[in-house]
């Protein structure tokens, strides 16, 4: 390949990271970032299935207005565990810990992350946090909601809040370690010639994400520790009966958890940039604006936590400041959407599965972002706050946006990661099923939310039922859509055609190494001589 000097000497094709060692021990003690990514992939997939099962039960319960399937306490535990598992154990680690781990070193021309052993440690920390959460289920579950609002969580709840707090606390350290590793790696280990503005936007997005992980996670860790102290030792921090302030908790919690929503979406945005460029054969329109909008989001994201508290009794002035900043943070998101769209202009667009997911992402993320404006507008948020409108908003962004991005990534880099090709037909079919199921599940929730249906309700007035029926029907379709990839992807591992090094004819260093990549990625460190996404210089189709 013209731009790098690495490609000439491929190692033997079967000398790759999968075959570099056999046996459980070779996996559990590996420091290879690619193997650690696989370990993460397995673990978060398990969590996704578990979180999904909770969701199925929630949707079934809501099919009828009465609480007939499970008791109120069980229902409350279901939505709490669903939120906890999906956010802390699936979505936050999903793209960074799997795709970022696997790809960042290769994308920047390095042989591994800066601290390979810390990388393995972060997986173990994550696993311990995950096991703690399993233990919570065994000890009867937890019912505070993923938001742990005090004084309910610190004093009143009779469930395993303490253990859950420990689990989330531990898991936070895995984020911190991953973030630290990425920041140092991106600063220090770029190949010669790979300047900041030649980096793939996927790397920029992960850089911004890592900053948030580093700055924000300690705050939530401390907050959760404080809840633990109050609950176990009766130290008065949040419960007014002990002289504490319950709203203080909300400030601390959202100081992390608002930026955390960007931990979930920024990596996805990075994926979209890669995929849209590849399947349009174009440089990303306005590369610099897309890169800096990630940083703008990361910075502004820390200043708008108060938009979760417009009805909690904060002053009108504080509400106004948070509202205006919330409107500002929507702008970099809009800028990205416009730039992706413009990238397609005069491109050469093809419709393989990853691109289908990008179309899905664009539609759903746009709805999610636009409905954020409804929530950021003070007087309107007062009405829709804590209703299904909010539930719909964040599912459009986190499931419609972030998970679509994750699936796009999984399908885009699957041949690279596994060396196998999956069935395009099945993959496209499932993408379409997911898109339809998703909209049927969550669009009605905007309507029922505006009508006044509060969230976290086990029973509800009859007039809301029709919306819940639609939603449950959609969720059934969605579940089928999500089950498909599990089958055809695993199938491809055993029966799939071998993937060439660059099946999509894409740009980027990861496509210059064989699929799957060799243990140390590169024999010789490549020298980068061109900008990212230089598709005009794409050499002839290899197939």
């Amino acid at each position, binding site marked *: 390949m013209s731009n790098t000097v690495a490609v000439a000497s491929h190692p033997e094709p079967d000398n790759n990271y999968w075959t570099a060692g056999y046996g459980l021990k070779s996996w559990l003690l590996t420091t290879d970032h690619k193997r650690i990514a696989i370990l993460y992939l397995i673990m978060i997939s398990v969590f996704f299935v578990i979180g999904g099962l909770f969701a199925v039960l929630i949707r079934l319960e809501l099919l009828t207005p009465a609480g007939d399937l499970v008791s109120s306490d069980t229902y409350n535990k279901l939505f709490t565990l669903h939120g906890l598992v999906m956010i802390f154990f699936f979505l936050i680690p999903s793209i960074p810990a799997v795709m970022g781990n696997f790809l960042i070193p290769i994308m920047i021309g390095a042989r591994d992350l800066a601290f390979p052993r810390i990388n393995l440690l972060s997986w173990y920390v994550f696993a311990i946090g995950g096991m703690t959460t399993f233990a919570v289920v065994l000890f009867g579950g937890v*019912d505070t909601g993923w938001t742990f609002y005090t004084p309910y969580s610190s004093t009143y709840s009779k469930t395993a809040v303490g253990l859950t707090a420990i689990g989330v606390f531990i898991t936070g350290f895995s984020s911190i370690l991953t973030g630290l590793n990425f920041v140092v790696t991106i600063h220090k280990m770029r190949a010669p010639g790979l300047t900041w503005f030649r980096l793939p936007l996927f790397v920029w997005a992960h850089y911004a994400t890592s900053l948030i992980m580093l700055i924000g996670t300690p705050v939530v860790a401390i907050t959760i520790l404080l809840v633990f102290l109050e609950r176990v030792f009766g130290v008065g921090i949040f419960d*007014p009966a002990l002289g504490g302030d319950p709203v203080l908790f909300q400030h601390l919690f959202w100081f992390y958890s608002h930026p955390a929503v960007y931990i979930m979406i920024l990596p996805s945005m990075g994926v979209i940039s890669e995929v849209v460029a590849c399947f349009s054969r174009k440089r990303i329109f306005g590369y610099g604006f897309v890169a800096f909008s990630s940083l703008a989001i990361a910075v502004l994201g820390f200043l708008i936590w108060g938009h979760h508290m417009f009805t909690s009794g904060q002053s009108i002035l504080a509400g106004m400041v948070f509202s205006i900043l919330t409107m500002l943070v929507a702008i970099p998101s809009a800028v990205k959407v416009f730039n992706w769209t413009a990238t397609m202009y005069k491109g050469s667009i093809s419709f393989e599965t990853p691109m289908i997911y990008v179309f899905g992402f664009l539609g759903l993320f746009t709805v999610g972002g636009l409905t954020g404006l409804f929530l950021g507008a003070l*007087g309107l948020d007062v009405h829709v706050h804590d209703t299904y409108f909010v539930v719909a908003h964040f599912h459009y962004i986190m499931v419609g946006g972030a998970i679509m991005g994750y699936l796009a990534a999984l399908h885009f880099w699957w041949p690279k990661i596994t060396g196998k090709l999956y069935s395009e037909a099945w993959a496209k079919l499932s993408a379409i099923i997911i898109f339809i199921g998703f909209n049927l599940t969550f669009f009605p929730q905007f309507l029922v939310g505006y009508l*006044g249906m509060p969230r976290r309700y086990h029973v509800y007035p009859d007039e809301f039922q029709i919306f819940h029926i639609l939603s449950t029907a959609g969720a059934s379709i969605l579940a089928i859509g999500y089950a498909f990839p599990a089958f055809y992807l695993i199938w491809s591992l055993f029966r799939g055609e071998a993937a060439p090094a660059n099946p999509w004819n894409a740009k980027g260093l990861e496509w210059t190494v064989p699929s799957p990549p060799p243990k140390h990625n590169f024999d010789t460190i490549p020298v980068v001589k061109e900008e990212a996404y230089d598709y005009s210089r794409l050499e002839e189709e290899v197939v």
Partner: protein
Amino acid sequence: MLSNIQILPEVASTMAGKVDALYFFITAVSVFFFLLVMLLVTFFAIKFRRRSKDERPEPIHGSLKLELLWTVIPFILGMAMFGWGAVLYFDMFTPPVEGMNIYVVGKQWMWKIQHPEGNREINELHVPVGTPVKLIMTSEDVIHSFFVPAFRMKMDVLPGRYTTAWFEATKPGKYHLFCAEYCGTKHSQMTGSVYAMEPVDYQDWLERESVATLSMAQAGEQLYNQLGCGTCHAQEAEPRGPSLYGLHGRAVELLTGNAITADDSYIRESILLPAAKLVAGYGPLMPTYKGQVNEEELLRLVAYIKSLNLDTEDSTSESRGGKELKEHRNE
């Protein structure tokens, strides 16, 4: 069945229509941008679809003009939404001076409501239409949130302090009352109804349902005497505690030198944690009443202390309610 699916809640307060107007505005902007992006994506996808494997489109690096355009237009629209929303928010949380007060205590899992006239209800709230109703709310345990969709009104109800909100019903009817902040097992059953009534019907209801013989302020006075507050707060030459007449709404000078306006929360705190904010010129004499009075009783004490203003000025609803009831009883 499909024909009678509603997608807007009932419009039953002065705020409801205004909130809906903002909702329509943001919906219109959103639909416009959504369609714009979707049409462009579809159009580009079709027009520029790959026709041959060898296509190598010319790179386009970007356009500063376009970037400015799609930064500035969303910015302007965002600021419009902010401004509009802020005006509504200001209205929602700035109760008009006239109007009546209702006292709300939330607890797991019920709403306890007291009218100044002394009427009490649980999970029901009767109000007249055409009168601003100010809610003074607190919680006995965890955080709850008082939510009436038909009024587009919601406010968190916190333990340890008073929060306020207001609405003015415009249309008689029965409306949902929800707890919107998750509060434990029966959060979804912490619901009730708001009955908006014509003023005459409301007066009827007050009289018909009036099992209480005392107004809130009178009940507060009784408590005040039982607890012996008067031993220190009496109107005498050298009282041990400051006079409570005219206290509500007045600026109080504290020992620390700061001044603070004596609102409901301040009075509540003075009773529960007297030492927290000592009044200038007085020592830490007053005992705490924490554990001796519950939130509902506290509200009555507050109502009583507020009523002590009336001897000087006669304006708030406490007096009207109280006096009307007195007259009524005297008949």
